[in-house]
């Protein structure tokens, strides 16, 4: 695997289709995009505009069909599953629905972000890192709670802690504030911004939420699979 470059994501002439035969539908048209290291980039656009498709392609969750996607210096077009898995370990994912493991406590969910690097007899180090991260996101008093005993905002903060605990080089977040009230939503994005600044983490956010745009370094709007607006507030 190559060393990450100063632009963690470089997309060139990216096209993508869903379906096959007559039902085949193009979702992305010649998308070009370069993301700067350490920035918060927001992808906006109506439903079906292709923003989530771009996110999943950048996150090694779909195969690149046409064009080029370079993630942390590695070409994803034709990449092996092993490379995809290795790259995913350098990414922090935050999902709209939290996707916390319901059988695991907040601490254990965060530990899963570290354990991805393999088994270790020194579980104490993972435990301490998870506790530290949960305290950073303001959940020092909820560390042993199961997700079912946490509020929506608290769950999302656990998801943020899980995504950031391993110091990822890049964070992909899909509608991270959709289930939160305005204050909680701003808190989560502010947290991403603060932690990103402290650690140099690049964040790419897909959202419909206008309330958080003030915190973005760059806002990209997609429509019908094309970038129609790219502004830096």
């Amino acid at each position, binding site marked *: 695997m190559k060393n990450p470059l100063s632009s963690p994501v470089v997309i060139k002439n990216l096209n993508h289709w869903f379906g096959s035969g007559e039902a085949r539908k193009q979702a992305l048209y010649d998308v070009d995009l370069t993301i700067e290291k350490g920035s918060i980039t927001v992808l906006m656009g109506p439903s079906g505009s292709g923003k989530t498709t771009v996110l999943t392609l950048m996150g090694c969750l779909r195969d690149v069909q046409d064009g080029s996607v370079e993630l942390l210096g590695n070409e994803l077009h034709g990449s092996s599953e092993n490379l995809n898995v290795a790259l995913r*370990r350098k990414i922090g994912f935050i999902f709209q629905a939290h996707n916390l493991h319901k*059988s695991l406590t907040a601490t254990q969910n965060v530990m899963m972000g570290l354990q991805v690097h393999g088994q270790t007899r020194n579980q104490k180090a993972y435990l301490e890192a998870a506790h530290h991260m949960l305290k950073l996101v303001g959940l020092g008093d909820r560390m042993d709670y199961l997700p079912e005993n946490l509020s929506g905002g608290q769950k999302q903060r656990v998801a943020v802690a899980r995504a950031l605990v391993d110091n990822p080089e890049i964070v992909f977040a899909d509608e991270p504030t959709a289930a939160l009230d305005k204050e909680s939503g701003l808190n989560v994005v502010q947290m991403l911004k603060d932690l990103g600044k402290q650690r140099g983490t690049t964040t790419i956010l897909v959202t419909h939420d206008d309330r958080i745009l003030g915190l973005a370094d760059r806002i990209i709007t997609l429509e019908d699979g094309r970038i129609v607006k790219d502004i830096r507030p």
Partner: protein
Amino acid sequence: MTAFLQSIMGRLPIGWLQLSYSKTRLAAAIAGVSFANILVFVQLGLLGSMNASIIKSYNVFDADIMISATDANTMTEGGNVARQWMFQALSFDEVISGAPLFVGIAMWSSPTGDTALQTFGVDPIRVDFLAPSIAKTVTNLTLLDTAVMDRKARGLTPEVAAGIRPHSPYRFETAGRTLTVTQTFEGGAGFAADGYMFVSDQTFLRLFGKRKSGAPNHILLKVAPNASVAEVVTKLKTVLPVDQLRIRSFMDAAREDQKYQMTQKPVGLIFGFGVVIGVLVGIVIVYQVLSTDVADHLSEYATFKAMGYGQSFFLSVVFEEAIILAVLGFGPGILISMAMYKFLAAMTFLPLQMTIATALMVFFGTLAACSISGAIATRRLVGADPADLF
């Protein structure tokens, strides 16, 4: 438990945490594995008791070679053998002695109901063909209509059996004759009869009027101490008519009897089939539990995939669950089975015993069956596509 598993696995015990999250489902899964264990244990116990009872009818004798009719698949089945072959066998230097053995089933209307006694008619003078524990009891058999009875036979109460002595004999009627029991030995009920009885060959011929003294069921032979039993058997086969006779070492006869009853007789087949059914029930139950568990956690597994967890991690979680279910289900399974063994042994007088070999075999069989279930359940993991999370 979580900390213990975490320390030995070097990772969070996701499988255990998933299983223990739903206590009801965990209890049902453990009950299912235990149930399958009980099924297998009971069937194996019955199979084992059948084997033990077959061997028991051989262990009361001390012989090197047994000559039987060609259709004598078991100790009690088959036609008769002409006694002349014993004399011919004795013409070999290596064969030092021979004795005819008569076998029949005597019906006794015992105080608790009809009792079938597997009756051995032996020459009471030739005690060298009997196991030492039996040999010392048969001295009185030279008296006509005298018997040595199995004190563990169904129908003979322990109190009555304990009181039987040469000076305080027990008398009962069978085949229109009154037999006097002067001694007892420890036998036990089996699948062919409710117990054993020894009488002299002369008493036997009176009990079974159609039998002839020149046609016993089997001929027992002893070979010289320095002779090879296998070689003598080979030699005998060159002289005696092998188309009319089965000439085998006594140990081979016992093994072939066991094998025949296990693989050819309905009872053996039924018990064997019961073991297979128990294993299949266990596999289906554990598969159902694991498969449902995988389906329930598909989105969480997809999340882990997105985070960079590889396929081996998911396989290890499913196998972790399978092994935990096998271990937790085995404990109650073996305890309940041991209680059932006691109950069945008391009810049937069959020699049901939990041996370490059986326990280990079922334990490792449970691990294997649960692993097979886990392997099948992992097919559902392919449905965990992280792209679906967005």
